[in-house]
């Protein structure tokens, strides 16, 4: 299974519900395309829900970083929601917990943009 990305709007925040695997190939390109589309439309507040993402490899991590940079360069912010233990471990190992703002609770994540 690759990744599915579903967008929903909560106020002025775009929440992306991702599910599946973000890995080299189809999974990482789907994520990249979703972020590019959002930035093109002018969406600058992005909360990426990874609670249903079972697996991310180093290519997927690279796409998260690229997405963060793309949104930041457009003047926006990309934050993460609902990390599984495996994804938390990856962010610890790669020190990316120092880069991303991470939330366990969607309401807190949404409120952080205001």
């Amino acid at each position: 299974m690759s990744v599915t990305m579903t967008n929903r709007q909560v106020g002025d925040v775009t929440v992306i519900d991702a599910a599946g695997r973000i890995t080299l190939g189809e999974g990482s390109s789907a994520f990249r395309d979703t972020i590019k589309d959002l930035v093109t439309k002018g969406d600058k507040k992005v909360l990426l829900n990874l609670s249903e993402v079972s697996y991310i490899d180093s290519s997927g991590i690279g796409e998260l970083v690229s997405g963060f940079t793309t949104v930041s360069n457009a003047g926006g912010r990309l934050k993460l929601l609902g990390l599984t233990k495996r994804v938390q471990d990856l962010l610890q190992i790669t020190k990316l917990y120092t880069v991303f703002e991470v939330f366990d609770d969607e309401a807190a994540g949404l409120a952080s943009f205001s």
Partner: protein
Amino acid sequence: MSASFEQEIQEYQLESTLDSVDLADQNALDLARKFGFGEDDQNSISMAVRECMVNAVAHGNKYNARKKVYLKLEAMPGTLAVTIGDEGDGFKDTDVPDPLAQENLLKQSGRGLLLMRAFMDECEHAARVPQGTLVRMVKRLGEV
């Protein structure tokens, strides 16, 4: 392939495709389960094998259909060793920027070796004769 009660060795010559990454992952996981590795260890082995295979297929062999990836799985009670070889140009540690350095944190790539080392108990690489890189990783039961 050879098998006994105490040891099992599997060897493969694989195509330089992403399908080979899945195949290597699945075979390593099946062997890990058979030799009693728990879910956390299986996840670690899966991550390391996939990263190493992607390096071999994509960075080493550059998806070249004429180049093969060598995979050897060796299991014995308490230990799983994975050896993966490619036919690429090889690399040195000094060629790989430190992905944990502040200036590299936002780079898109370069974390594969870090993850392999983090998830396995041993991870060594060497030049392969006549060409390429050979990586050997070991996971032991009950170690981080």
